[in-house]
């Protein structure tokens, strides 16, 4: 496989406001590095993430999408992350069918206390997506500049 040494993937991370966004803040407080390719979008709860957002991201040229929420049982809204888990497993299998590898999508539970886990997760995910290379599927070339 051809690997482009300079390839920097574009990663969209949806983080729930109560756990994972705070976990990302904690990673910052503790100065735990992770690649700048990760861009975080704040949502109130991981269950706010509409599959449309993910499709849109891939359409617009994202190489990977990760959704982070509270650990099961710890959702600020009691049960939102359970919905996320079910919705995303369906969506990811559909994306897989469409040719977007499973490794490009991920759901991860990161609590507000897990800054280190946040950074480690992002490092791992970026490495994983980088290894896959650029995502061509679903991409709408009209959206590229």
């Amino acid at each position, binding site marked *: 496989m051809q690997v482009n040494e300079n390839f920097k993937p574009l990663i969209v991370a949806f983080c729930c406001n109560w756990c994972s966004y*705070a976990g990302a803040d904690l990673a910052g407080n503790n100065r735990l590095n992770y690649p700048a390719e990760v861009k975080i979008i704040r949502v109130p709860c991981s269950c*706010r*993430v509409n599959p449309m957002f993910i499709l849109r991201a891939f359409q617009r040229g*994202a190489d990977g999408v990760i959704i982070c929420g509270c650990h099961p*049982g710890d959702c600020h*809204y009691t049960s*939102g992350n359970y919905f996320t888990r079910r919705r995303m497993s369906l969506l990811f299998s559909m994306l897989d069918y469409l040719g977007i590898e499973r490794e490009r999508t991920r759901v991860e539970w990161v609590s507000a206390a897990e800054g280190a886990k946040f950074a480690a997760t992002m490092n791992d995910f970026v490495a994983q997506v980088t290894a896959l290379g650029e995502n061509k599927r679903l991409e709408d070339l009209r959206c590229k500049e």
Partner: protein
Amino acid sequence: MQRIGVFVCWCGTNIAGTVDVKKVAEALKDEPGVVFSADYQYMCSQAGQDMIKDAVKEHKLTGIVVCSCSPRMHETTFRKTAAAAGLNPYMVEIANIREQCSWVHKEMPIGTEKAIILGKAAVAKVNLNTPLIAGQSPVTKRALVIGGGIAGIQTALDIADAGFPVDIVEKLPTIGGKMAQLDKTFPTLDCAACILTPKMVDAGQNENIRIFSYSEIEEVGGFVGNFTVKIKKKARYVKEDICTGCGLCTEKCPQKKVPNEFNLGMDNRRAVYIPFAQAVPKVATIDPNYCTMLKTGKCGVCAKVCTAGAIDYTQKDEVFTEKYGAIVAATGYNPISMDKFDEFAYNQSRDVITSLEFERLTNAAGPTAGKLLRPSDGKHPHTIVFVQCVGSRCSHDAEKGKEYCSKICCMYTAKHAMLVRDKYPDTEVYVFYIDVRTPGKAFDEFYRRAVEEYGVHYVKGMVGKVTPEGDKLKVLASDLLADKQLKIDADLVVLAAAIEPDKSARPLATMLTASMDTNDFFTEAHPKLRPVESPTAGVFLSGTCQGPKDIPETVSQASAAAAKVIGLLCKDKLTGNPCVASSNELMCNGCSSCEKVCPYGAITYMDKEFRMPDRTTKLRRVAMVNEAVCQGCGCCTVACPSGAMDLKGFANEQIMAEVDAICK
């Protein structure tokens, strides 16, 4: 079209160190809708805020983007600034270029590039922001305190003193908690009971305080200002209002072999019991696991001897619902199990005890009436070994114990050692320590007194093995400073067991939707600036459920939590979160998908008349969101198949715009 102002903060060098703020301000200037862009050293300062206000007026801004620290830090600040300038506070968006950019990336070009993208995403979002007006909800002027230890008692007393009614729910038959079991307290050596019991009595007699003892929380619903809590009052088989606490039943009960949990199983109580003399409420409780009458239907001695007629074998658990404006968690701690540390032979010898058991052994109301006697043979111990840090400070991969320092052990061990030497000068006392940690007022002085005045042998090192043999405990330990392995024949070994949050805290946190750390301590809203609040609005933290603490710290936190509760209960109305779901009636097809996923029951359906284009009317079933109940998770928006449901402040369009801006 919006008129957006962009304000890029340097945060001193926190942001400016890795992000070229001038370049960011410059790059965002040409984004759609942006009419003003500037940078400043500290946007959150008064001068910075004034700069925003001036720009709003001067450039007739309709929206604001602040590129600064996390919105969790200063979103409220900048919303207030906007409001002061006459803007709707929800026309502000924050681009987090500190925690999620400058602090995690090291190189200036990379940090700058990312900051620009985050800024663009925020601009894209603000372009679609609409003014939001928060609803208001009334406040139930009653507080709930969960846990009746010193933390819960202090919180309840302070709230009650301010004139608000407060309920304490305690799972045991009496309030008092761990402090009631302690003998003396460091560093002043005043007796725990002497300072605690007056507070227990105050709580019991205060007209603003109701104590639900022997009770547990079953269910929590609602939100800040309007919690609905189901409380289960367990059957104690004694009518609380009639029992006089005379204790006659507890003397006559024929079932004498029940391990006494108040003395940590070191002696026995009866099946009907009052935990200790100063219990509040001073009411007997029948233990259904041991009561012969409840188990076999034959006995009834307590009912016969009770002159008040308070015994009621038919009593059932009772569940009732109360409404509260605020909830305080004060669930406390327990020493960890010593099962994983049996190299210290805790399970093999009765003369290896934990420090809490030691408290009971030296307490005048304890199993030995305050005489320090060995549990195995009742003899006076002549050599006592204290082992510190048992189960504290363990690494994660050791797969036993806790990673944190339990904080109180150094001081109580110094206290125990000192008291033993004071009362029994013929006793040799060894304390094995890794570090002696005594940060606190008069703490180190106290520890030094134990060494210098009382002659306690402090040994830097750790006990590796305790071998019971004959009536001795052979203690093998290292003395690191002398570079020796010590072999001590001890009579009593006391383990300073790590402390952990009470097991009831985890299910409670789930009910409260309050977050916990990996050790099951409640997480505070901010580790420094909001240490007594949970991130869940209306839930406050008191005492060791938030982290290891000694008594003075617990009491300070308890009072601080009370102050926060009082501040909340003083308000007549609370301004809610306007970022709630709303349904577009014209698109709603009445399918009920949203209703099924809503955890709050905030969505109801109604039949509504709609005018059709042909001027007829049609009755359609449509979703309605109760804005006071909706918490804004957005789950329904994804469930909605017709795209009718959306979330204010985090609308589909807004998030899509952010995605587009990032992926451009």
